[in-house]
């Protein structure tokens, strides 16, 4: 028993010494206090006294300055919690407007990560920055084990991890339950049922869907490509290798379906000039019975609380196809490779990866988190959405398209909606998309 106690003390000493080796300042090379909870628990279970642990914590306070640059709101609660748990870290959360954010982080990276340690690059920039050596390799960090299956692997570039997807997204459709009930309809479970419902809604003078092609044309396309992506989750990858083409029968059929919906008047007139915020307004005003969007915007509906009762369902596949959720990691937190305070930044990463902190983040940001064991209880709609994350998954279309194809898809979707003016057809759109895809594949 005595021997066990001695070994425990020795282990605790080794732990303190090893953590001390990871310090951030020359004078005080110490690291990872409260955030290293698993080690504490282990030490405690092996007999080390609480006082010794507290003593070790006091000794290993991480010191440094961390500036996190993101778009959107900087959450006071998160900042306060970080300050409380990591007292040695001077944490600054800098908010940038969405239109200036990309320029801001690119400029700072070009200046050697001046004034920026942690940031959340745009999805398209993440692999480019990682390959360009602008992001810190965090492969093998123990806190990465705290994330749900598939999350960390989705952030791998050439087998290395450069960021943590803190949130996860999938496509959803909000629907006006009152309007559906008024027409004697219930929540559809397949795309075929959805189409039948649209016909009934239209007959009753209700426009079925409001879209926002001005800012999210690719997301509308994903709604019509969902069956194809559910059937063949590899389709987006196959486009890159040339195994699949936009001009293939199934892809043309998906574009033709969009054309058909336009012809049938299933998409609200005037949608072409709407962005997602305006589409939400149209939905709240009851101008359409459904609104397609993604889980990233749940706060919009949570804050507005429309006067009618509403429900939510995922994008739907046709009858006979296993419906999958189109899924992708959301905000990816990364550390700039040239950060002046890497260890302090890592301590923040460790902190956000702990379930209680991740839970706080999700509740505050009203986002779906990726750390194991957290619950999505920030809004009743969030609880309805939770099961979608447990569905089989396929890649979220707009997040995984190649650059030229993505731009071209937005253009062609807009042209198909304005087909009376542009004379665009599904076949013409598919051809233009394939040319863009070939361009991507060549590059």
């Amino acid at each position, binding site marked *: 028993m005595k021997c066990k106690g001695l070994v425990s003390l020795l282990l605790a000493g080794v732990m303190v010494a090893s953590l001390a080796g990871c310090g951030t300042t020359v004078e005080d090379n110490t690291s990872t206090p409260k955030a290293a909870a698993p080690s504490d628990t282990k030490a405690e279970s092996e007999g080390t006294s609480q006082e010794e642990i507290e003593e070790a914590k006091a000794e290993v306070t991480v010191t440094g300055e961390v500036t996190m640059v993101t778009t959107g709101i900087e959450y006071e609660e998160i900042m306060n919690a970080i300050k409380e748990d990591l007292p040695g870290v001077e944490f600054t959360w800098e908010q940038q407007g969405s239109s200036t954010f990309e320029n801001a982080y690119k400029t700072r990276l070009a200046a050697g990560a001046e004034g920026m340690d942690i940031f959340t690059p745009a999805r*398209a920039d993440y692999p480019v920055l990682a390959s360009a050596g602008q992001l810190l390799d965090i492969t093998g960090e123990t806190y990465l084990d705290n994330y749900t299956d598939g999350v960390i692997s989705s952030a791998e570039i050439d087998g290395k991890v450069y960021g943590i997807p803190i949130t996860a997204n999938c496509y959803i459709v909000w629907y006006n339950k009152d309007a559906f009930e008024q027409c004697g309809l219930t929540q559809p479970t397949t795309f075929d049922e959805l189409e039948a419902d649209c016909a009934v809604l239209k007959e009753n003078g209700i426009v079925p869907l409001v879209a926002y092609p*001005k800012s999210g044309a690719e997301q509308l396309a994903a709604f019509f490509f969902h069956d194809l992506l559910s059937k063949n989750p590899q389709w987006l990858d196959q486009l890159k290798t040339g195994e699949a083409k936009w001009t293939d029968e199934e892809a043309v059929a998906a574009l033709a379906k969009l054309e058909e919906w336009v012809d049938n008047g299933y998409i609200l007139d005037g949608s072409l*000039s709407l962005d997602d915020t305006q589409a939400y307004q149209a939905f709240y005003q009851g101008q359409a019975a459904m609104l397609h969007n993604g889980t990233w915007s749940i706060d919009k509906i949570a804050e507005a609380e429309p006067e009618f009762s509403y429900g939510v369902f995922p994008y739907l596949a046709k009858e006979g196809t296993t419906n999958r959720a189109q899924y992708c990691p959301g905000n990816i937190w990364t550390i700039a490779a040239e950060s002046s305070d890497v260890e302090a930044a890592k301590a923040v990463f460790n902190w956000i990866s702990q379930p209680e902190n991740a839970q706080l983040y999700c509740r505050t940001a009203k986002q779906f988190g990726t750390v194991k064991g957290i619950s999505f209880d920030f809004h009743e709609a969030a609880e309805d959405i939770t099961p979608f994350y447990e569905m089989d998954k396929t890649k979220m279309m707009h997040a995984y398209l190649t*650059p030229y194809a*993505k731009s071209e898809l937005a253009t*062609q979707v807009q042209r198909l909606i304005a087909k009376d003016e542009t004379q665009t057809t599904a076949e013409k759109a598919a051809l233009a998309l394939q040319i863009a895809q070939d361009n991507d594949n060549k590059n």
Partner: protein
Amino acid sequence: MKTKTSFILFLGPALVIYTIFRMGPALASLAYSFTNWDGLSKTYEYVGLSNYIEAFRDELVLTSIKNTILYSVIVVLFQNGLGLFFAVLLDKQWIRGKNFFRVVLFLPAVLNTAAICFIWATILSPTIGVWGNVMTFFHLNSILPYDLLGSSDTALITVALVNIWQYIGYSMVIYLAGLQAVSKDYYEAASIDGCSQRKMFWKITLPLIAPSITINTILTTVGTLKEFEHVYSMTGGGPGNASHVMGTAIYQVAFGNTQRFGYGIAISTLLMLAVCIVTVLQRKIIGKAEMNSEN
């Protein structure tokens, strides 16, 4: 000698700063236009003139050039025409509350462009704004598309109208300054000679405010050739690329999905050349007209 020294002393610091912080990056960016740099990587390759050659074959760039010219012509003509009209009107002594109207007309010019565009986009949206009701009330449905910003026929023109609305006051103020510098003696003399109001405008006012016309035209032309904010905020270049101008096209290729900085800089260089050429030509043509009017 003393004058020369003080000239250098006063000008020197500003010139050095300007050269380092403005000319340096501009010249460096010119070099990047011959590369395939993506704006993020630390390495890139020289691709010669291929970015420039591609620009003249790229449908997006060609559409944006056409749109930029159309946009410039509309805005330059109407903003200056209306600016001059309001300036002449509000220069009249008998107009009551003219200071109030001057402020009202100038106010949009000092407001944030993004906010203005957001408000106009909301107003003009047939689904969430009032435009749908206006169309129905005035029976405009047969002559105008339902969704002005969502129609490829009207999106660009609508944005141009918002631009004109915002900056009419700006042009008006410059014209007002010009008008107030014209001596009232000319009008009195003309009036004694029995000259009509219209003739006075064409023969006295217009020639004497020629410098204001020059500066206004050049400012508007340069501003519209570089147009970005209005188009980006109101249509994003859509629908289907129909309203892209060069500014938004550059943004799309450099900062959009394709992330082609080198190519974007090449298009920027072409835009810069176009602005220089147009400005020089304009200066020459209008300068000649100014000289004629002085004679």
